[in-house]
């Protein structure tokens, strides 16, 4: 964790500070979430404007059920990446990542930087599978995840309903970390044989 906080320069020269959330700043999160337009907020799983949910989020971070990164400009939080970390049960090796960026900072590469960073943290935390659920029409995010090495596990039909009541398919994207290490070790093994 020594690499945090760090400054990330985005494509238009915008410098953002990226840091690990060691504890939840409820007031800061409230400002971030309540300033989001309702139609963006709908892509979140919970009513993050409610005090109860904000407190639950703080507990998740405190007891290790979540790992979070945030990006800041002039101390204002402009994006958050969340890793759900199940502590028990049959999917305890699967971490789901989610990223949210403030409307006025979308399209600047904040989301991309957060996706890459939260993913590398999931690998560091030794999860076997990293998962992302993406709306089928969100091709930019799907392409980015595929470039990182995620693959499409399948499509859940009509799994998401937007602010206007329209339903969308969700693509379940996953990255198998064990397979990556296996592929890498095979690659290096072949390389060694080639060298000799």
């Amino acid at each position, binding site marked *: 964790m020594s690499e945090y906080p760090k400054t990330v320069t985005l494509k238009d020269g915008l410098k953002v500070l990226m840091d690990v959330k060691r504890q939840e700043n409820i007031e800061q999160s409230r400002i971030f979430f309540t300033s989001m337009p309702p139609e963006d907020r*709908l*892509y*979140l*799983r*919970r*009513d993050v404007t409610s005090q109860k949910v904000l407190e639950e989020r703080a507990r998740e971070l405190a007891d290790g059920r979540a790992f979070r990164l945030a990006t800041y400009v002039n101390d204002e939080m402009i994006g958050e990446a969340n890793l759900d970390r*199940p502590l*028990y*049960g*049959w*999917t*305890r*090796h*699967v971490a789901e990542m989610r990223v949210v960026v403030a409307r006025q900072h979308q399209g600047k590469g904040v989301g991309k930087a957060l996706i890459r960073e939260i993913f590398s943290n999931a690998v560091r935390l030794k999860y*076997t*599978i990293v998962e992302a659920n993406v*709306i089928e029409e969100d091709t930019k995010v799907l392409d980015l995840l595929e470039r990182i090495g995620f693959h499409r*596990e*399948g*499509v*859940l*039909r*009509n*799994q*998401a*309903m*937007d602010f206007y009541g329209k*339903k*969308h398919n969700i693509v*379940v994207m*996953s990255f*198998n970390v064990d397979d990556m290490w296996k592929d890498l070790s095979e690659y290096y093994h072949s390389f060694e044989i080639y060298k000799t």
Partner: protein
Amino acid sequence: MARYPKSVRLRDEGVFSIRPLRLDDFNAFLMFSRDIPPEDRLFLRRDVSDPEVVQKMIAESQSESEIWLVTLKDQRIVAQGSIQRSLHGWMRHVGEMRLVVARDFQRRGLGSLLARELFICAIGLKIEKVMAKMAIEQLPSIKCLEKLGFQKEVVLHNYIKDLNGLYHDMLIMSQEI
């Protein structure tokens, strides 16, 4: 919930009662949970052998985002099932069904019976899609849901890790209402 309690007679098995889980079910529910063999217990999301977890589950079961039903035989809980959904967010129209039947009462139709009841409750809550997750090897559960009209939707590779650390594929089945 006005339809409960409901008595159901199963051929050769006698009479069972189905009703919502209540706050005073703590001891019966804990007993039911602790009787689940460890290998079955791992297919649950939480450690239901822990009284604190059970207490929390029962409290949560009273929330409007969840429906919990239990099947009783002579005051003993022999099956429990739930439909859980989020009241907010992009999946507010989706309910997830979960079912557990006591080992000594499996393969008697109790799972199908409870699943049917939960499905009716889901319709009442205006849930538009019901989904269920299981290991791809859980053939009786798959057959039971297929009989209710569920379809196989997605197979997630190695999404389940059992007690021995072995990976299994997870099947997601669903039915749109």
